[in-house]
């Protein structure tokens, strides 16, 4: 299945907040009901959310799609509190409407049957990894998901996704899974060559380290970038990443890039 660029038209809609669930200290799960169908929204794509109630928050804030219930027309986001906007967003109560622009960006390239994939998520980068694990169409044995965090409390509960793959964890303090960074985990350090594709989303230093290993091992590797955005749909040219073909818009030509195209 090729990367999706034209699933549904981009649209601005008021979505109804159905649930706002605190997952741990600073991660929240927001479930939103859409008045329009969501078919064709795929892992790696994102939405751009207006944060109305906050003074001096002028632009929207982009968030990856964590999950979609196509039938009930709901979309879930994983929001990590980083600054003022994400904080305000987590304070909105169910029953209120939130203006959202979606779907934005290109999805990950789907694996071929027979691929063995390693999905690596750090921080809020966990969101697109979980959605990809669920949607990639491979048997669970071929899907390996490695999640990294600072400490056990920064890991969110991923029970709903365990059936889609094998899960591994790292924490910097060893409080859950292996101690260290994701690249220190045996599944990455020792078994990398078993994988035919790597997908990753998280802090840039993490993704860069992963990309370096993937290149060396000659494994296809796609990363999802989180450059600062003003518009999210390709008109402002603010979100560019320097690639081998020059500046590319992360919001329309990404956020997913093959690491071979990046100047990393």
């Amino acid at each position, binding site marked *: 299945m090729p990367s999706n660029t034209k699933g549904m*038209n*981009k*649209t*601005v809609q008021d979505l109804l907040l159905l649930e706002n669930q605190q997952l741990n200290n600073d991660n929240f799960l927001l479930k939103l009901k859409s008045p329009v169908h969501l078919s064709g929204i795929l892992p790696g794509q994102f939405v751009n959310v*207006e944060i109305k109630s906050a003074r*001096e*928050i*002028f*632009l*929207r804030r982009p968030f990856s799609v964590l999950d979609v219930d196509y039938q009930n027309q709901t979309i879930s986001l994983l929001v990590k509190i980083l600054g003022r906007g994400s904080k305000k967003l987590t304070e909105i109560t169910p029953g209120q409407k939130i*203006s959202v*622009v979606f779907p934005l960006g290109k999805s990950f390239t789907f694996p071929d049957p027979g691929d063995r994939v390693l999905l690596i998520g750090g921080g809020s980068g966990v969101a697109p990894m979980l959605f990809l694990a669920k949607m990639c169409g491979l048997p669970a044995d071929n899907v390996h998901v490695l999640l990294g965090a600072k400490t056990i409390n920064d890991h969110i509960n991923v029970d709903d996704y365990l059936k889609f793959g094998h899960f591994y964890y790292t924490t910097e303090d060893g409080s859950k899974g292996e101690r260290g960074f994701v690249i220190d985990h045996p599944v990455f350090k020792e078994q990398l060559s078993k994988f035919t594709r790597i997908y990753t989303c998280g802090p840039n230093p993490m993704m860069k380290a992963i990309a370096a290993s993937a290149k060396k091992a000659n494994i296809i590797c796609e990363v999802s970038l989180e*450059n*600062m*955005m*003003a*518009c*999210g*749909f*390709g*008109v*402002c*040219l*603010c*979100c*560019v*990443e*320097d690639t081998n073909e*020059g*500046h590319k818009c992360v919001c*329309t030509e990404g956020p997913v890039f093959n690491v071979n195209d990046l100047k990393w």
Partner: protein
Amino acid sequence: MVDLGIKIHNVEFKNPVLTASGTCGFGEELSDFIDLSRLGGIVVKGTTLNHREGNPYPRMAETPSGMLNAVGLQNKGVKNFVNNIYPRIKDIDTNIIVNVNGSTIDEYIAVTEQINELDKIPAIELNISCPNVKEGGMAFGVSCPSAEAVVKAVRKVYNKTLIVKLSPNVTSIAEIAKAVEGQGADSVSLINTLLGMAIDAEKRRPVLSTVTGGLSGPAVKPIALRMVWQVYNAVKIPVIGMGGIMNATDAIEFILAGASAVQIGTAIFKDPTIPVQVIDGISSYMEKHKIGSISELIGGLQM
């Protein structure tokens, strides 16, 4: 039915609402969201003679009620526009206007000459006010002699409608407007962005790769309104107003201050349907106030 039609020099616009250069791509990017043919016009991304990569990332900083950008005229050059983009957009039923840029007068001329060949481009907007490029750009727009020189040169090679886009980073924008009117500009548009800066106090670094950038959005609206009003009172050619327009009320304020048309810029980033909402809102306002034709509102400020 109210009459929203206006005329700038000899170009007719179905309504006075255009999308601003650098904030609407080539129009196409908005087609998922709105019916482009509803727009009065589309001013496409700033075009230069050669391909430009623009400035390094980061290029954007959010500010109170506004944003700074330092895009730096990233574009694939005028040849690419003529060969690849123009064919795709030329049949959109609205006025497509090209925003023309250069680091030297010769570059402005070269770009203009190539755009001049395009039947479906009724006007150019000569950008002498880009604050985000090292050479040319705003430098041309901040003194009367240099503004006059570039307008004079371009006027010689262009006989369709010539709109000159002015910089707000000047002591007297009315004088610059008069200077370019004197060289045959058919209209002036204003304001381009105000030169600003953002600092990350934690990192003790400028936020933008270029240190300074251009400020736009509602924060600048009071300044933009004042400048439109000053320029309207200084020149005879039509004025196109912009700077922080977020809704129909804002647009009407600019029209009352003297703008014959308005451009919507940064607002598009917040909500790409705003240009159409503004058109509808102006209609409602006119109906409510029993104003038959938009021309009755232009400069209609009661003093």
